[in-house]
């Protein structure tokens, strides 16, 4: 009996020894599974909050095309977020991201997002050119230097037929010391226009001898019908103090028959130098001349009689074209790229009738905010402005003609947290974008 008991004890001892062999594996596995599940399973919203753009006032449909982008800060790292009515898109900052982005940089534009959703096969590989669309056509244009020649690659999609074509067009030479820029693409009736600007940089890098050419191309055949040199008064004199810039049409699906050309010239300050020290720095004074270029007949019309030739109006405003209407929107901060304003001035002139049709100011307080972001956006006759009240971003959409508020949306947390204020304090949503 004693022998039997000793044998049984020995057997139990061996079994315990065998089990104890696995204890360490079990402990390590259990700790790993339990702690990591608890960490990632418990309240993930506390780490990555989800926002949504909620309609507070006006037409819900307007809000569907709006998105606000910015960063949510986790520690010192900003994580890119996009907030729209459907929710939030959170971009993880991965260790390989920097490397991968460097290799596969794809220029992001909110305007392209809707197009890639609607026409994925047509938009494939199209990310850095210019596009224009009407109800019937979607045109995408890229400019390239092909062995000293300027080559325009025009991709056209007939939306109704779903048929796409590609045309390669020669647009003159591209000398080594010359820069060529595609300033505007505009579908106009049966034609498409490309506005090309050529200039030579001087030793200081300033553009000189700017030349604008309008290439008129037949949409159906893809042949160049006409090449129009646009002679802007002032550009005939080679001068580094002279600059031109163009205002593209962002009106949306409606083709604009015009483009706005702003020609500016810097002249030495005209003031008495008697009381000034000998080497006093006289700042140049920049004057502006505005011209409307009509695509249909290539006519260039001066707008100086309609628009006073002042820095405030011409130099510091954001311009938008909507069909025949031209809007100038200026924030009160006095600088075009200033981050915040307390009100905006809106002026509108009809280019066909050559007459003013609207002028008003809107204060941030009228829209229920302390400040409004800048620059404003414009599409389909609507002015979009981002508002910021106590770190809580809002969007206001104003009818450009009447100045009436047609939509107001506010960014809200999907799941209300106790520390909402803390979440918003870690969030910087300051870039407004309109999806096409």
């Amino acid at each position, binding site marked *: 009996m004693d022998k039997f008991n000793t044998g049984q004890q020995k057997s139990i001892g061996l079994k315990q020894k065998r089990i104890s062999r696995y204890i*360490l*594996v079990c402990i390590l596995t259990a700790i790993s599974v339990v*702690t990591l599940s*608890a960490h990632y399973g418990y309240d993930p919203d506390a780490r990555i909050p989800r926002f949504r753009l909620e309609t507070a006032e006006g037409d819900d449909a307007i809000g569907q095309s709006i998105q606000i982008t910015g960063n949510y800060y986790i520690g010192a*790292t900003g994580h890119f977020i996009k907030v729209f009515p459907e929710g939030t898109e959170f971009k*993880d*900052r991965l260790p390989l991201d920097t490397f991968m982005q460097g290799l596969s*940089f794809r220029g992001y534009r909110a305007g392209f997002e809707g197009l890639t959703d609607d026409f994925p096969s047509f938009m494939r590989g199209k990310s850095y050119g210019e596009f224009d669309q009407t109800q019937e056509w979607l045109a995408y244009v890229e400019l390239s230097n092909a062995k000293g020649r300027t080559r325009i690659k025009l991709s056209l999609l007939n939306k109704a037929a779903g048929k796409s074509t590609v045309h390669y067009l020669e647009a003159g030479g591209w000398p080594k010391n010359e820069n060529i820029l595609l300033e505007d693409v505009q579908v106009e009736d049966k034609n498409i226009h490309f506005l090309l600007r050529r200039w030579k940089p001087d030793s200081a890098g300033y553009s000189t001898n700017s030349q604008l050419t309008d290439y008129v191309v037949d949409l159906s055949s893809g042949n160049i019908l006409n090449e129009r040199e646009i002679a802007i008064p002032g550009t005939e004199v080679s001068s580094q103090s002279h600059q031109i810039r163009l205002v593209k049409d962002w009106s949306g699906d409606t083709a604009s028959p015009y483009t706005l050309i702003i020609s500016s010239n810097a002249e030495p300050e005209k003031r008495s130098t008697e009381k000034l020290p000998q080497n006093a720095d006289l700042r140049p004074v920049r004057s502006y001349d505005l011209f409307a270029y009509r695509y249909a007949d290539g006519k260039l019309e001066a707008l100086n009689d309609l628009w006073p030739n002042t820095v405030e109006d011409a130099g510091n405003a954001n311009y938008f074209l909507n069909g025949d209407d031209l809007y100038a929107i200026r924030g009160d901060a006095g600088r075009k790229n200033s981050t915040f304003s307390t009100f905006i001035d809106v002026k509108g002139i009809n280019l066909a009738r050559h007459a003013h049709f609207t002028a008003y100011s809107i204060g941030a307080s009228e829209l229920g905010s302390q400040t409004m972001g800048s620059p404003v956006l414009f599409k389909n006759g609507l002015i979009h402005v981002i508002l910021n009240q106590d770190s809580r971003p809002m969007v206001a959409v104003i009818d450009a003609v009447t100045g009436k508020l047609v939509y107001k949306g506010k960014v809200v947390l999907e799941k209300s947290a106790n520390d909402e204020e803390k979440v918003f304090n870690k969030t910087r949503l300051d870039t407004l974008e309109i999806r096409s």
Partner: protein
Amino acid sequence: MSQYFKLLALEVRRFRYVLAGIMVYTLIVECVAVALDINNHSRLFEWNNDSRHSFAEVIRNTQSGFQLAIVIPVAVLLAYALLIWYRDWFGRHPFIYRQMTIPGGRAPLYFSKLTAILLFVFSMVAWQLVLMSVLRIEYVWLTPDAMQEAVDFTEAMTSNEVFNTFLLPPSFKAFALNYGLGILLILILFTGVLMERSYRIMGIVAGLIYAALNVTLLILPTTFGLYLYSSEIWAICLIVFGLEVAAALWISLILVSKKVSA
């Protein structure tokens, strides 16, 4: 299966003291870093009574301490991913003769070593989470009551860049991606070691070419960024990742079963 568990238990037992050592090392370095920061801030607090110091701020201020606490264990684990094989050949009592002749094939031997390394890695990550609770207790214990500021645990975790970008990223997707790439690295390393053990000098050359090929194939889809949409690049990368994992396992199992000799 029982062979696999036995071998896994053996591998864990062999590394237990080193694992305990790096765990203690992490504990000490992080505790010291936190204590130093609290001490520094306490002096400021004596001078300016308004300056509170939350646990999240302590964790944020001790980035370099956390880096130091993590770099050494990472290096040890990486080195052990090589040593786990070579110690069986070159150890004081070469063990590989016995391991190669275990009944039931050599696959359990390969998987036990792989699982052991992964278990050590995830145990260290879990240990870091446990340590955060320890550090919080240390904070409450060392910080004067008037200087303490209530803050939730998640905020403290997310205030440290070492956690956010590397160890415990905020989203599970990023965690899976980080550690998925880590697992692939271990698999490639194991395949390289088995190539070297199978073909010696030629094996080293083949292993290096194999590793370069894997990295190139994984990165290649990202170079088509202008022609592919990002969702497509992700899908291709995931497929390549899956194929590389499968290939690494397949090559390794062939090598360990048919080519490697004691």
